[in-house]
């Protein structure tokens, strides 16, 4: 039987704390940037002009069909060679994760908007609203309510995906856990603690999503 020794990790608490901060920081950055990309791609995907919606559709399809680990590695190693611009690991990682998340956000946002009954748009236009007013006053307020749970779900995925940043040697929670594991020869404790720390953040978050979803069902 393995002799678990968690107190041993206490001396590395600063590393773990640091890793957690980095993970949360990258997550927030990638969520915000991803949402911005998703909003543009999602609404743009509804444009009637093919010149606008076709490239956006291809962007969404392409990024959704590529494993995120492959994307991160490709953005770091291949893209700089392709465009001739050197990128730090941080920039490449944030770019890859934001665009990856953005593709999913875009689908959620587009789906939320088209799910609103066309009769709502008819009624708003019949009152004399401009297209922009119809969006702002009638469609988006209703769509947002529907989109919130799936958007939060996707954001949870986004946080989990930051664990892949360690492959580019970015000092996130997983990276620090690896470092501790190598140094102490106690990988079981180190990785268990890493897992518990992720769960500690994500469990309350998914609880909140669940609550929002059930509220929506009412």
């Amino acid at each position, binding site marked *: 039987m393995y002799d678990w020794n968690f107190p041993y990790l206490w001396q590395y608490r600063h590393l773990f704390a640091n890793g957690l901060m980095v993970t949360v920081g990258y997550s927030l950055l990638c969520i915000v940037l991803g949402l911005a990309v998703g909003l543009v791609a999602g609404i743009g995907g509804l444009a009637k002009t093919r010149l606008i919606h076709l490239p956006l559709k291809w962007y969404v399809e392409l990024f959704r069909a590529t494993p995120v680990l492959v994307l991160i590695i490709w953005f770091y190693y291949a893209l700089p060679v392709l465009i001739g611009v050197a990128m730090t690991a941080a920039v490449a990682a944030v770019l890859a994760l934001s665009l990856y998340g953005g593709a999913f956000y875009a689908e959620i946002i587009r789906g939320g908007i088209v799910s609103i009954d066309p009769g709502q748009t008819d009624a708003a236009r*019949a009152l004399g609203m*401009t297209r922009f007013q119809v969006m702002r006053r009638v469609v988006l307020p209703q769509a947002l309510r529907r989109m919130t749970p799936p958007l939060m779900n996707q954001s949870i995925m986004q946080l989990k995906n930051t664990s892949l940043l360690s492959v580019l040697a970015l000092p996130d929670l997983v990276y620090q856990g690896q470092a501790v594991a190598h140094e102490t020869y106690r990988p079981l404790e180190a990785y268990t603690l890493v897992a518990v720390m992720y769960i500690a953040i994500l469990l309350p978050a998914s609880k909140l999503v669940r609550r929002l979803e059930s509220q929506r069902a009412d």
Partner: protein
Amino acid sequence: MIDIHGLQKKFGEHVVLKDIRMHVAKGAVVTLLGPSGSGKSTLLRCVNLLTIPDRGRIRVGAHEMTYSGDATRLPGDRALARFRANTGMVFQHFNLFPHMTVLQNVMEGPVTVLRTSKRVAQEQALELLDKVGLSDKAQQYPAQLSGGQKQRVAIARALAMKPQVMLFDEVTSALDPELVGEVLGVIRNLAAEGMTMILVTHEMSFAREVADEVIFMRDGIVVESGSPDEVIGHPQQALTQQFFARYHAGQNAT
């Protein structure tokens, strides 16, 4: 008040409106009858440009729009919006805004489109709700209302824009039979006040009672028009006679 000339509309290869000509005098009530798929609703939607016609000329009050196929230069979004603000429309499925209270629904047009102050808009909205007999529901949400109540709110919402013309698109078709009367009552009062109206309806007896003119459509053309007595009472064409015969038979059966 309304003039329509040479109106045509195709959806793909399917011709919905062939060559519609129509005149509605100020204060007149016109009802559109006809089998489903005859183009009544499309015609109504063309009057306030929710559906953009392919060809023809439409005048509502002082606003006029001309369409000439592919050569048409569509007016901008704002011009279309201004044109639509001129006509009130009520839909079969109410289409109330579910995220707003009844009062907010009725205030929405004036506040957002006409930039009326909230205080004034609220006063007017409460008056209108009183007029349709729903002032006690002002703070409720549409989901809490019956179909008949929803439709009366929808009428109040359209009236809040002080339109020159009201368009009713089968507004009682989605209602339980016992709720139809309250909605027709509101429309009857509007007619008595001299509101110019076009109604698409299947309520034949109501059409007879309230209409100044009845237009019977089939396959995208006007086949008969005239007083209710002429069109409903003594239709000239065989197909129209059949339609009303079937309708009366259905009435007797129920």
